[in-house]
């Protein structure tokens, strides 16, 4: 039983137009194991998951799930396969209950008892979320983290024999990830096959029994449990020419900033939250952390001029006059040289119908107008090429749609858009969500170069490890306000975590680093 093969892929290939997502993919997974699929952006992981789920059809090769061929999600449901996709797919206007059981029944016939389902859903959702959720509530009124849980619970409620998680923990905070892992352990014990598609290497080392590594659409190897280490994974994921700088060290080389370029006074993120002050030194990279919904998101939106803070004032030093000017709207923020990059690519990032070129250059059209307001596109070509080279964006033709790129490469285009504006301050809102390590390193490197040239960075992340060896200071949010600023040796997992949970300062820390920041 233990070694029964549940999924087998042989020589699978899949192309989207000119982009070859999968070239030669071989894969096997057994019952009762947690199997990770690892690879950089654009390596074909998500395509693999979609083929297994019956959403996409392979151009060549053979896929067998639990001994059957799957050609549609209806098929997948029949054989007992459930997938949690990267996007949070919910019907906003329907109730939690309807969202949990969508697709479970025939067109007319219900295949379960409503009362039983109700109880089962309440139990599982309470276990996952950590508190009871009203199943009658309309999903659109709930926060993103609960929507994510609904999507996860929808799959778990099917008691699948094969469960695929495609970057499903991306929107979850640490506490929630632990609960998810408990759930995965429970399913593994009952003999299910669990596939995890993830970039979070730490997570994978902890939970995976085996890992299959993909590179450029080819499966390059399988690691057993004891071989799954960060070094091994990286060695297999990254082409050899990119492996030069193994250790992450993009920390500041100790230059002093020339005063604050952006200040916030008496800022309040919420009606009930206490006001706080914030200073961004020129040439600094300031990390912003916090558990889900502690005000850090509202804070970065406020400084970027995307949304009005509940109270307080944000000022930016003008590049021309050197005077501090108030920034309250998006337009003022743009004029003050603030660029914003969102990790929520689908909703706040890409123009899905437009080309890669348009997506990257759209922010600078206004500065490149010729007679009669015609955009001088040729004059933008050098800029485009520079950003593509610098950020190592893997593209086919610049006129291809942005959606032909993988998530990580889309994110790079968005960061290129921000750089193209020649900003003073870049505000990044969890830009590395669902992005692989190679891309992250490209990003850290470019942001550090930007900071060394006098630019300033505000970097919100849901992964603590991102800040280590990168940020000059980490501002941790708790209960809607800036709770603690950490710098120097305090930028490490434990002190940041302690602050995220609102714990009082660890007495073993000798210096009051908050004041030196």
């Amino acid at each position, binding site marked *: 039983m233990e070694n029964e093969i549940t999924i087998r892929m042989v020589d699978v290939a899949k192309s989207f137009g000119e982009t070859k997502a999968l070239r030669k993919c071989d894969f096997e997974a057994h019952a009762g194991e947690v199997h990770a699929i690892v690879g950089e952006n654009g390596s074909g992981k998500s395509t693999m998951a979609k083929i297994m789920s019956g959403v996409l059809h392979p151009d060549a090769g053979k896929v067998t799930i639990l001994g059957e061929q799957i050609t549609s999600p209806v098929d*997948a449901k029949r054989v007992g396969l459930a997938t949690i996709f990267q*996007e949070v797919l919910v019907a906003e*206007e*329907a109730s939690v209950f309807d969202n949990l059981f*969508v697709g479970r029944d025939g*067109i*007319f016939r219900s295949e379960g008892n409503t009362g039983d389902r109700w109880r089962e859903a309440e139990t599982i959702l309470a276990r996952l979320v950590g508190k009871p959720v009203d199943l009658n509530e309309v999903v659109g009124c709930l926060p993103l983290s609960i929507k994510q849980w609904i999507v996860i619970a*929808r799959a778990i409620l099917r008691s699948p024999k094969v469960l695929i998680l495609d970057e499903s923990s991306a929107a979850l905070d640490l506490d929630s990830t632990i609960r998810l892992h408990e759930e995965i352990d429970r399913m593994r014990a009952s003999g299910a096959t669990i596939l995890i598609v993830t970039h979070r290497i730490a997570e994978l080392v902890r939970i995976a029994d085996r890992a299959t590594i993909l590179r450029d659409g080819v499966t390059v190897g399988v690691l057993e449990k004891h071989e799954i280490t960060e070094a091994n994974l990286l060695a297999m994921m990254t082409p050899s020419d990119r492996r030069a700088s193994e250790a992450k060290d993009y920390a500041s080389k100790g230059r002093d900033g020339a005063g604050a370029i952006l200040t916030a006074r008496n800022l309040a993120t919420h009606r009930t939250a206490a006001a706080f002050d914030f200073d961004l030194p020129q040439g600094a990279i300031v990390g912003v952390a916090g558990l889900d919904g502690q005000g850090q998101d509202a804070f970065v939106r406020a400084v970027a001029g995307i949304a009005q803070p509940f109270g307080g004032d944000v000022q930016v030093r003008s590049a021309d006059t050197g005077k501090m000017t108030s920034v309250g709207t998006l337009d003022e923020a743009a004029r003050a040289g603030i660029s914003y990059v969102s990790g929520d690519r689908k909703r706040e990032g890409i123009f899905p119908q437009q080309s890669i070129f348009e997506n990257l250059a759209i922010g600078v059209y206004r500065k490149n107008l010729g007679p009669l307001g015609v955009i001088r596109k040729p004059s933008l070509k050098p800029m485009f090429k520079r950003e593509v080279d610098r950020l190592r964006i893997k593209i086919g033709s610049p006129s291809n749609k942005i959606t032909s790129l993988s998530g990580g490469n889309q994110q790079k285009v968005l960061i290129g858009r921000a750089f193209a504006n020649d900003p003073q301050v870049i505000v990044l809102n969890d830009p590395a969500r669902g992005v692989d390590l190679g891309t992250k390193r490209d990003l850290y490197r470019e942001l550090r170069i930007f900071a060394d040239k006098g630019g300033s960075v505000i970097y919100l992340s849901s992964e603590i490890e991102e800040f280590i060896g990168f940020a000059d200071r980490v501002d941790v949010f708790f209960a809607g306000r800036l709770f603690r600023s950490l710098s120097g040796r305090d930028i490490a997992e434990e002190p940041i975590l302690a602050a995220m949970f609102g714990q009082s300062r660890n007495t073993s820390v000798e210096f009051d680093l908050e004041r030196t920041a």
Partner: protein
Amino acid sequence: MPSNAIRQLARDRSLFVPAGLFIVLLAAVATRGHGLFTMNGIAGAILVATPLILTALAITPIVMAGRGAVDLSVGPLMGFINVTLITWLVGHGVTNPVAVIGWAIGLGAAFQLIQALVIIYVRVVPIIVTLSGFLVLSGINLMVMSRPGGVAPDWMLSWGAGTSVFSPVLFLLLTAYVIWAGLRRTMFYRNLRMTGSDERMAYTSGVPVDTVRIIAHVVGGAFTGLAALSYTALISSGDPTQGSTYTLQAVTALVLGGASLSGGRGGALGSTLGAINMFLISYLLSTFNFGTVSGFVTQMAFGLILVGSLLVNVFVISRRAAA
């Protein structure tokens, strides 16, 4: 669980505006006299309002299926059933009630089946398909019958008398409600809402979205057939052009009833309220003397009330939902 049903209705904020408007209009009509609140008044109202209510019901499942699938062809389709009924069936001596009713419902369902198949398998945007349907049928109707004429079957002539509340026309309406209520009890209604709310989500979750869409269209087509019967009873003859005016009225009624044109939200109750509200608006205006411009005034009132109700929805109801 009736209390549960009531709670669900209360949760469905989309019905607040149409229900409120209905009460206001009813009160306004009452202040203008009691003509409507007599047996004859109600019988006449049912006769006049039924084609509009049924066409609004017909587009409801189709709009709910999402993709911005507003069925523009509904009016001309009703006209098409009307003129073919008069010319091809009655014109050739076929007056058997079973044949006539079967023809009306079968033709409506068949036409919608074709539209659904084109939308799904040719992958054309729904509104383009139904716009083509609108144009093609508007033309064909004039080819079948170049000017209003013909007579309805004998047994149908009494339907349009408007003397009794419990006329056969009311039963056409009730038939539609019974079909809808039956569908609501099955999983189809949930599948339809889910498909309309987020088709990708529904598809990847294992909802057979294509089949759901086909059924939505076929049900809509059957309702159009019922609408055509009530329309034929109302005018007792054939008319190749008047049917087309019902398209925009049905869409207006649907939106007034709180349905979302982007799909996922809507229902028979809302669409019915929307259609009745439109009837009440025109009835109310007809009690004033606008002379020759009364038709324009009615249309303008429809437009203003539509915009007004959407504004109330956005600024009062949804605001509160978000808070």
